[in-house]
């Protein structure tokens, strides 16, 4: 199936962000990560597990009137390493970029280790070093490989 066919599945947006090539099944985690739950009234379109030539299956998220910060893109890279970001203004793609894996992520993930100092109410943000196949808490050394999205700090 071609990309043109897929584009028909969800409507175009006037301005905002299209996140394409999200790892199949991760769209809702991407929305959670970005703190988008529809409560602000913005138009959000989600396509999950649509066929993709390059990836087999992928998810696509379109968010009206929202552009992503670098911090958001960094963490996005952890759960959707192949994602492409399209900034849309007046129905046109004005900017297209791929996410890049950051070297570390700060204040985004909660350490799963309950005995970690970062979970005790000390005045510090969580800090994770990004490994080739996961992330590692810079305080206690705990490594997370699977289900990184499950550890996103609640906003």
């Amino acid at each position, binding site marked *: 199936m071609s990309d043109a066919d897929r584009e028909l599945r969800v409507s175009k947006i006037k301005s905002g962000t299209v996140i394409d090539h999200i790892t199949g099944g991760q769209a809702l985690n991407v929305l959670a990560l970005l703190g988008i739950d529809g409560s602000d009234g913005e138009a959000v379109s989600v396509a999950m597990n649509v066929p993709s030539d390059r990836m087999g299956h992928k998810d696509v998220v379109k968010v009206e009137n929202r552009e992503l910060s670098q911090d958001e893109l960094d963490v996005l890279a952890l759960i959707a390493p192949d994602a492409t970001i399209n900034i849309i203004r007046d129905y046109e793609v004005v900017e297209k970029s791929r996410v890049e894996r950051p070297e570390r992520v700060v204040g985004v993930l909660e350490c799963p280790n309950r005995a970690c100092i970062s979970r005790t109410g000390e005045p510090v943000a969580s800090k994770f070093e990004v490994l080739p196949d996961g992330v590692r808490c810079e305080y*206690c*050394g705990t490594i997370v490989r699977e289900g990184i999205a499950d550890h996103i700090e609640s906003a």
Partner: protein
Amino acid sequence: MRRQLITTRGLAREEIEAVLDHAAEIAAEPAAYGDRHEGALLGLLFYEPSTRTRMSFETAIKRLGGDAVDMGSVEASSVSKGETLADTARVVEGYVDAIVLRHPKEGAAAMVGEFVDVPLINAGDGAGQHPTQTLLDLYTMRENAGLEDLTVGIMGDLKYGRTVHSLAHALTNFDARMHLISPESLRLPEGVRYDLREAGASVEEHTGLDEVLPELDVLYVTRIQRERFPDEDEYRAVAGQYRIDAATLESAPEALTVMHPLPRVDEIAADVDETAHAKYFEQAHNGVPVRMALLDRMLDGGETWSRSGGGASPVEDDGGGSS
């Protein structure tokens, strides 16, 4: 430059050997260092019980001509009023020349390191790291077996044992062959295994001692704690398999060095004490010259130490045989 010893992860061989060499100089002539740091004050922040570590740090600073102050029991301090560790450390930093921290949470010392500029030493952070124990362990190994071409067996609670984590990281500097002997449920945590793999360390895992005992130069025994098991019976069954006595050691090489970070309960039977293998009391005594050497270098300034964390999962009290 900050002067901190938080973890042995990433600690260079030269840094380790510099401390061990200096410790040997001090051990040879301790009186010569009696006024090295006259007036220096060491702040002991111990949020967990400790005998050896606390007393040997206090002894070390006093033998260097300095003194130590502590916060007393946690219950009697402002910790009980809910003060954060970051605040307590920043206050104490203004009173003393260096801080020694023992804390039940993993990564506590790394966190404090973000807030203080005085020299900082991690004296045990939960099931994380215990780098000064490792320095005295290596000193003891060097004295008894040498650090070249070493085959080390590490047995017991490898998951929660912070002394084990620090030792394993440090041994990657010395091309030692490591045999890890533990029940399945208490294997080395993934964070430490990852580093050992990255360092290309020679590591083999075993569930029993018998098969590797004849190959060992050093056997490092740690305590398996009862609270790691759901019930008493299971604990007894497992712990019984990781206990040694004089009879066990009959098949060991004559020159085998048996070590233990102490306190032991019954994982090393008293009859081992009488054998030439037993070095754990000597090991504990080495804590003073090694900590003197470390303090001497850190108080002199210029020393920088790596400071990232490394550890496992929850621990309530003393992590698997730490002092």
